[in-house]
């Protein structure tokens, strides 16, 4: 049984549903009832109740696409900052396709401190010394050379993507490259720098107004206005 309504604001400890219902998000079971762990909004996706937190740090999941900064070069890999409360690790074997001799080739020839990478989370194991393992052996990942990285709250990422990518498709109408990292870092690259600045402001708008209805339509009109203003 659901004990909440869509778009309701819940607080830590609030009862969301009884144990037999399907609930996703930050909740816990207490005496046969699901209770919320965060201040969040309620969403219904088919018969699943989803609690969407309104604040919080990035929690890595297997398969997430993230934008990270290289913070350290270790003996057999790199330490990467992915905005989590734990450091991430990118081993050499997951970064390069061919074998390299680590005794003769310094790792800094591939990636150095301060470099920006788009990576996939290969595994998360909270009992490991480095709980997050990254990989570059996937499509659309690798070192980033140009463009801008903007940071938004990680909990607002689903809103930037939208339902089945609807918001992202709207943003794509500007003809820019966009990669939305699940950790709240968004990499954009446009031919025109002015477009890049405008796109960054749109993403910030989505972040600020993420919980207000009709956002996609407002973003659409902003893009139309920008386009007609340019020609």
């Amino acid at each position, binding site marked *: 049984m659901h004990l909440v309504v869509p778009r309701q604001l819940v607080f830590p400890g609030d009862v969301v549903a009884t144990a037999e219902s399907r609930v996703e998000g930050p909740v816990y079971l207490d005496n046969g009832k699901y209770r919320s762990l965060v201040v969040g909004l309620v969403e219904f996706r088919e018969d699943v109740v989803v609690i969407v937190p309104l604040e919080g740090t990035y929690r890595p999941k297997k398969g997430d696409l993230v934008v990270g900064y290289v913070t350290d070069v270790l003996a057999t890999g790199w330490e990467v900052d992915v905005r989590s*409360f734990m450091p991430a690790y990118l081993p050499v074997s997951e970064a390069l396709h061919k074998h390299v001799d680590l005794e003769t080739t310094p790792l800094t020839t591939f990636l150095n401190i301060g470099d920006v990478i788009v990576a996939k989370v290969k595994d998360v194991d909270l009992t490991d010394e480095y709980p997050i393992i990254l990989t570059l052996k996937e499509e659309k990942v690798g070192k980033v050379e140009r463009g801008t990285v903007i940071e938004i709250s990680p909990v607002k990422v689903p809103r930037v993507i939208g339902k089945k990518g609807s918001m992202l498709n709207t943003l794509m109408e500007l003809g820019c490259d966009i990669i939305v990292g699940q950790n709240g870092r968004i990499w954009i690259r446009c031919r025109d720098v002015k477009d890049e600045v405008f796109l960054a402001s749109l993403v910030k708008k989505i972040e*600020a107004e993420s919980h207000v209805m009709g956002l996609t339509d407002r973003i659409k009109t902003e893009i139309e206005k920008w386009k007609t203003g340019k020609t």
Partner: protein
Amino acid sequence: MKKPPVPLFQNGVRADGRAPDQMREVNITVGIVSNADGSAMVSYGATTAVAAVYGPREMHPRHLSLPDRGVMRVRYHMAPFSTKDERKSPTPTRREIEISKILREALEPAVVLEQYPRSRIDVFIEILQADGSTRVASLTAASLALADAGVYMRDLVIGVSVGLVDGAVVLDLNGLEDQYGEGDLPVGYMPNLKRFTLLQLDGAWTRDKFLEALNLAIKGAEFVYQKARDALKSKYMTIAEDIYGR
């Protein structure tokens, strides 16, 4: 025992005109420290506490981190200008160090630290003005700041104090009653789970008075909890109003 300058309890009315079961004016604001990940300001009458939460973030130095859960560090501090008479020295006193510890222990049952291995959560609490019940105001502020930071919590922790003044059980002690009263019972309460996380007792109490005080504390905590919910709500609703108002 010292004699109070004014009668503390006369004809069922307290020195500041309150009924025995009446809180002082409660004001709560969430998200006032923009540098912090989460923050809150709570005032019970003149007593004002600000709490700011940083984290969860990586623990440095690393050897202090725990492999299976996060570490919460709480610092309770009174501003030099917070007291009535003499300026308080800004150095942490023995009392402040103790209150920091009991506040940490009162928050730990609510915070799901197992979700944050090898990391730390820092909670800073500053008392801007002290007029009794500072530790319970701090507790409310700290739990709201944690919720504002998005830290996983089983419930909010609400702090209220009850006391024994001239033989009567009263809610939310002010500085005067704290100083001259016969007993004092600070309480930390989780209103949804109906569980206590802090229970300290000072003075000589009978069993009946203690149970009466405990029930009064729950009543007070539920009153403060509603104010706390409204404060959290208004933070997210103001953004909505900004857009619809245009």
